[in-house]
C-alpha cells in the first residue's frame, strides 16, 4: 500500500481499538479530506474526526487539554510551515507540562504535519522544520520514510506517553511498500533501521532523504563503493548506538536530510559521531542538506535546493578522498 494508505490504516485502527483516540484539524473530515484522514469521519463520525476552524494554536491547545484528561488526540497541522502558529502550545505547554508540574500532568498528544517541498509551492509551503523541535526538551520527533515505518511509528506515537511531532512528507505519499495490517503492529520510537547494508560508508538519513540515499547507494555500487543506509526514523529519541555501530564499521559518514543543512539535524549527528568515534573516522563527517535559502517556487531552482543522489554521491567521494567517480572505491 502507499504511505498515505498506511498512515490512514494506523489512524483507522487506533480509532477502532481505543475510544480515547480522536482526530482534530483543518479539512480532515469527509468530504473535504484528501490526505491520510480520508474516509475516517464517515466511518467513525465527526465527533471523533473533527474539522476545526483555521486556528492552529487552538487545535494544538485543545489537543493538549484533552490529553491532560486522558484522551489520545491526534492533531493535524496541515502543512509544517503553519506549525509556527501553534509553536507556543507545542513548545511551552505540551513539551513542558510534565516537567513543570513534577509529573502531575502531561500532554501525550500527537501532532501530525506534512512537509510539502519539491512540488513548486514556494517558500512558505515547503519547509522541513524538524530541527526546531529536536531543540526542545520534552518533545519526540518522528519522520518515517516507508509505508511500513509510517504505520508502525504513527501507532507508537499515538499511544506514547510523551508529545510527538510526527512529520509526514508529501512526496512520499504515493510511495508503495509492504505494510503489516495487524493492528498490534508498531515500531518502537528511538530505533534506527538499516535500509541497506554496506561496508565503506554510512549514509545516515530519515524521511525523504532515505530515498535519495538509497538512490545514491545504487549509483555508488556501480563504482564499487558499498554504502550502508541507516534510517534514523526518529530524531528524538535518537538511536546513537545504531549510528555509532554503523559508522564504527564503515569509518565514514554522510548525513542526508531535506532540512536546511546549516544548524540542521546533521550538525548534531556529526557532533555525536566525532565525539564517539574520534580517531576512528577515515574522513570528516559530511552533510548534505537543503541549501540555506528560502525555497524557490520554480522547479528548476527548487531542485537545486534539496539533497539529490548526485550531491550525496559527491559527498561520499569526498569522504573517500576520490577526485572523481572513476578513480576507484577505496582512495
Amino acid at each position, binding site marked *: 500500500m502507499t504511505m498515505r494508505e498506511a498512515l490512514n490504516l494506523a489512524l483507522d485502527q487506533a480509532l477502532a481499538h481505543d475510544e480515547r483516540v480522536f482526530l482534530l484539524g483543518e479539512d480532515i473530515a469527509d468530504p473535504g479530506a484528501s490526505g491520510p484522514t480520508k474516509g475516517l469521519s464517515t466511518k467513525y463520525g465527526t465527533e471523533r474526526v473533527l474539522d476545526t476552524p483555521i486556528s492552529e494554536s487552538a487545535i494544538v491547545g485543545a489537543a493538549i487539554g484533552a490529553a491532560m484528561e486522558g484522551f489520545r488526540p491526534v492533531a493535524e497541522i496541515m502543512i509544517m510551515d503553519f506549525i509556527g502558529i501553534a509553536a*507556543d502550545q507545542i513548545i511551552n505547554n505540551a513539551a513542558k507540562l510534565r516537567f513543570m*508540574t513534577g509529573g502531575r500532568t502531561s500532554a501525550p498528544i500527537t501532532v501530525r504535519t506534512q512537509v510539502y517541498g519539491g512540488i513548486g509551492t514556494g517558500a512558505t509551503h515547503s519547509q522541513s522544520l524538524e530541527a526546531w523541535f529536536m531543540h526542545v526538551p520534552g518533545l519526540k520527533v518522528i519522520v518515517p520514510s516507508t509505508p511500513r515505518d509510517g504505520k508502525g511509528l504513527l501507532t507508537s506515537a499515538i499511544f506514547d506517553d510523551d508529545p510527538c511531532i510526527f512529520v509526514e512528507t508529501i512526496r512520499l505519499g504515493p510511495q508503495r511498500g509492504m505494510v503489516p495490517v495487524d493492528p498490534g503492529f508498531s515500531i518502537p520510537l528511538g530505533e534506527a533501521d538499516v535500509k541497506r547494508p554496506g561496508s565503506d560508508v554510512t549514509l545516515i538519513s530519515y524521511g525523504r532523504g532515505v530515498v535519495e540515499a538509497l538512490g545514491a547507494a545504487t549509483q555508488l555500487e556501480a563504482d564499487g563503493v558499498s554504502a550502508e543506509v541507516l534510517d534514523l526514523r526518529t530524531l528524538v*529519541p535518537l538511536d546513537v548506538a545504531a549510528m555509532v555501530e554503523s559508522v564504527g564499521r564503515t569509518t565514514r559518514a554522510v548525513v542526508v536530510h531535506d532540512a536546511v543543512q546549516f544548524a540542521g539535524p546533521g550538525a548534531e549527528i556529526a557532533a555525536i559521531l566525532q565525539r564517539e568515534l574520534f580517531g576512528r573516522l577515515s574522513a570528516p563527517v559530511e552533510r548534505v542538506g537543503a541549501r540555506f535559502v528560502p525555497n524557490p517556487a520554480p522547479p528548476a531552482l527548487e531542485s537545486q535546493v534539496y539533497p539529490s543522489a548526485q550531491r550525496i554521491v559527491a559527498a561520499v567521494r569526498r569522504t573517500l578522498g576520490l577526485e572523481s567517480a572513476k578513480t576507484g572505491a577505496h582512495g
Partner: protein
Amino acid sequence: MTADRTVGVSPEVQRRLYELMTLMKAADDRLSKGIASGELQCVYWPPRGQEAIAAAMGVCLRRDDQLVTNYRGLHDLIGKGVPLVEIYGEMLGRQTGSSRGKGGTMHIANPECGVMLSTGIVGAGPPVAVGLAMAAQRKGLDRVTVASFGDGATNTGSFHEAANMAALWDLPLVLLCQNNQYAEMTPTEHTMKISQVAHRAGGYGLPGVRVDGNDPLAVVAALTEAVDRGRSGGGPTLLECVTFRFRGHYFGDPMAYIPPERLAAALEADPIPRFRSRLRLAGICSEADLDEIEAAAVTAVEEALTAVLTAPGALVDELDRDVYADPRNCPA
C-alpha cells in the same frame, strides 16, 4: 442593586468569601514583605487588589471544576483550594511545592484541586482550557472549566481562536477576564479600541458580561450564571471582571506608568475593606468576627511559610525527571 445581591448570597457564603479574600491578601502581604526585605527570594507577580474575583471562584466552583490560570495566580490558586504550603513551596523552590519546587511561581498545578495549568505566556491558557472542556463534554461530565486571564490576553490570537472554538462547540467553559486595566506596563485603553472586553463576545456568538470585579457578590452572581450555563450545556461565557492590580506587573515594579491619581482611586476601591464594611453593616459579621478572620488568615500564612522554609530545597535529581515519561529518552 448590590443590596439585592447581598440578600441572594447566604451569610455563610459571604463570610467564606471574606475568609478567602483575607487569606489571599495575607499571603500576598507576607510574600511581598519577605521579598522586599530580602528574607524570601523568588519571582512574583502580585494579584493584590483582584481578590474578589478569585474568592468568587472559590465559592462558585466545585472541586472537580477545572481552572487554567496564569503567572499572576496566587489568588486563583487559593480560591481553588491549593494548599498554601504547595504554593509557597513552589515559589520558593522547596520540595513541598506543587511540582516539588522545579516549576516555579508561574507554573503551579494541582489536578486534585482542579488546577490543571498556570501559564507563563500571556494568552496560552485559553486553548488548553478548550481542550479540558472538550474532554468534559466528551466524557459526559457536568464539570465546568474556567480560563482565567487578564485584559492583555484578549489581544492574543490564541484567545480569539479559543473563544471561537469554544462557542462553536458549545463547550462548558467560562472565559474569565480579570481586567486589571494594565497589560504589563500598558493601559488597556492603549491596547484596544473597544471600551469593554466583554464586547468581544459578540464576535464569537457567546454571551459577554461585565461586572465590578471588586464586588465579590457581583462576581458571584455573574459567575454562577456562567457556570450554570456551562454545566447545563448552554456553552461558554466571556465574563469580564473589572479590577486593578495594586503592586504593578511584577513585584518591585516602580509603576511609573500609573498616574498617581489613578492608583489612588483604585486603592480607594480596594475590594477588601469595602466588603469588610458591607459585612458589618449587613450584620453578617461583627467587628470581632472580622478581626478573628483576619488574624486566622495571618496565622495560616505564617504556619505555611514556616513549613516551607524548614522544608528541603528541590533536589538536583529532579533535573532529569519528568522531561519524558521514561528518563532514558533524554539525549546524553
